[in-house]
């Protein structure tokens, strides 16, 4: 008995893997999430051929959005060539007939784990972020019913208090990723574990962003041209990571979010986290004609 005889042939599965009722439910929840920016919508997270916690939330949203005309890009911590990213991209393409790409500019749907691409996204693009924990209040209120009530009352005092405590104890805000942010002046969301560097990219962005957590069975959205404001005290400005001066050791570009590569001698070198941007820069340096889009950060400063 072989494995192929035990598995269902691809032709027997629904288009886009999920059945029609699952996609209908997700579409309804996605529309609701767009209607109430930043508000978490519960949904019946389905089984997909991937373990929970590996991007099943993002995958379900992508499978609901995808069609044969779509071009899908999947990144994992900024890289297109990670095993998880490559597997998800191939799977989406296989069950939907959508094209695959590494190029941010050519993608219509970008599914991402923990990064927003450096190139500015357009109105016709959708960013789907995989979210491990969609609840910003989890750290201050473990009871989900009470947390829901706190969202309803916009009761974010204790969230602010954790930031106050970090300033008191450490002299600076220690929240490195998943920085709590106020969406449309109403709901506080956790923008998935994207670095602080990426949070300003969501503010008044042209593209639509979905943030979906398959294990937690909830999704929320940031519609185009919506305010996303990180929670900061009026006299302690929001600070992104100090990557402005770092130079990518492979592509030579600077002023973007970098991955730190520890060296044997104890020092560190850096590579640009958005691997597609790095590859484009290398190819351009080699004399190829490569289209690099406008980036959110220019010279290390946010300028969108």
């Amino acid at each position: 008995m072989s494995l192929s005889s035990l598995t269902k042939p691809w032709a027997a599965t629904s288009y886009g893997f999920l059945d029609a009722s699952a996609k209908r439910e997700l579409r309804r929840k996605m529309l609701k999430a767009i209607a109430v920016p930043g508000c978490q919508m519960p949904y019946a997270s389905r089984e997909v051929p991937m373990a929970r916690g590996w991007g099943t939330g993002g995958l379900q949203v992508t499978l609901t959005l995808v069609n044969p005309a779509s071009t899908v890009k999947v990144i994992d911590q900024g890289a297109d060539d990670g095993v998880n990213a490559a597997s998800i991209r191939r799977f989406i393409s296989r069950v939907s007939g959508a094209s695959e790409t590494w190029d941010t500019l050519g993608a219509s749907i970008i599914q991402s784990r923990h990064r927003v691409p450096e190139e500015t996204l357009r109105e016709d693009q959708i960013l789907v972020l995989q979210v491990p924990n969609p609840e910003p209040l989890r750290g201050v209120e473990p009871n989900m019913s009470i947390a829901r009530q706190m969202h309803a009352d916009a009761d974010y005092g204790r969230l602010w208090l954790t930031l106050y405590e970090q300033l008191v104890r450490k002299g600076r805000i220690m929240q490195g990723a998943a920085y709590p942010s106020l969406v449309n002046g109403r709901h506080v969301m956790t923008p998935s574990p994207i670095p602080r560097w990426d949070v300003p990219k969501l503010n008044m962005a042209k593209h639509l962003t979905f943030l979906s957590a398959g294990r937690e069975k909830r999704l929320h959205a940031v519609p185009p041209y919506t305010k996303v404001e990180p929670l900061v005290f009026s006299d302690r400005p929001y600070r992104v990571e100090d990557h402005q001066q770092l130079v990518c050791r492979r592509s030579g570009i600077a002023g973007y979010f970098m991955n730190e590569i520890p060296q044997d001698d104890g020092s560190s070198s850096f590579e640009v986290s958005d691997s597609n941007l790095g590859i484009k820069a290398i190819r351009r340096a080699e004399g190829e004609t490569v289209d690099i889009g406008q980036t959110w950060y220019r010279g290390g400063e946010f300028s969108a």
Partner: protein
Amino acid sequence: MSIDMSVSPAPLLPPQLMQTEALLTMRGLSRSYGAVRALRNVDVTVYPGEVMGVVGESGSGKSTLLRMMNLEDTPDRGDYRLRLPDRDDCNLFDLGRYQRRMLCAHHIGIVYQNPHLGLLMRHSSSGNVAERLLIAGERSFDVLRSKARDALDASEFPLARMDARPAELSGGMQQRVQLAKAIALEPALLLLDEPTTGLDVSVQALVLDTLKRLQRDRHITMVLVSHDLGVIRTMADRVLVMRHGEVVEQGLADQVFQDPQHPYTQQLVHAKL
């Protein structure tokens, strides 16, 4: 000894309050928990700047009454009004949850008998005070620090320990942090639920001194619930005696303690003496 429950003399006021409009008015408050009637048709009036003491045995409805004043619970029937400069006169029990929360954050402070109910033990003492300011909308870190420091100082809390966690503090210090949190926004009404119970006598005296000084300097209106008649006698201008969910007697503190009318009050005062 049989107790006649029918006696309920008319409330008396100190002369300076005779012409004053009440700050807090509760009328016809009733609340049952299953078969237990915690409050039965209770009427309470509190005037600006006074300390109203509420006494009674355990289970008499004192804490239920205080929870109602803090809008933590809703009665089966009854009316609750607070005369505040920026608010329309309305029954506060008709407000939604959000409005209640904001009203309490701005205008009502509370000190619980158990500090765990009023404090976040994992956060700093100054953070506990700052939380109240954050709920009220303050977003400047420097202002939060300075207001928290002022409130803790007013509560006679040692400022060198303002960033210590309440879990690391003594019971008396925890009560001072609660007090600082309660007065941080200069509330119109300060509710004190057995604030000195469980403290030794010397610490009790210090906490009461702080409360008296706050009342004298800031003219904060207080409702003090206690079953310790000594505490009530020290602090209160007027006293309300409760039994089985009913108000059996109320009047000026001196009068109630020196010439109690209701047999239960007589029993209470003599038991104390």
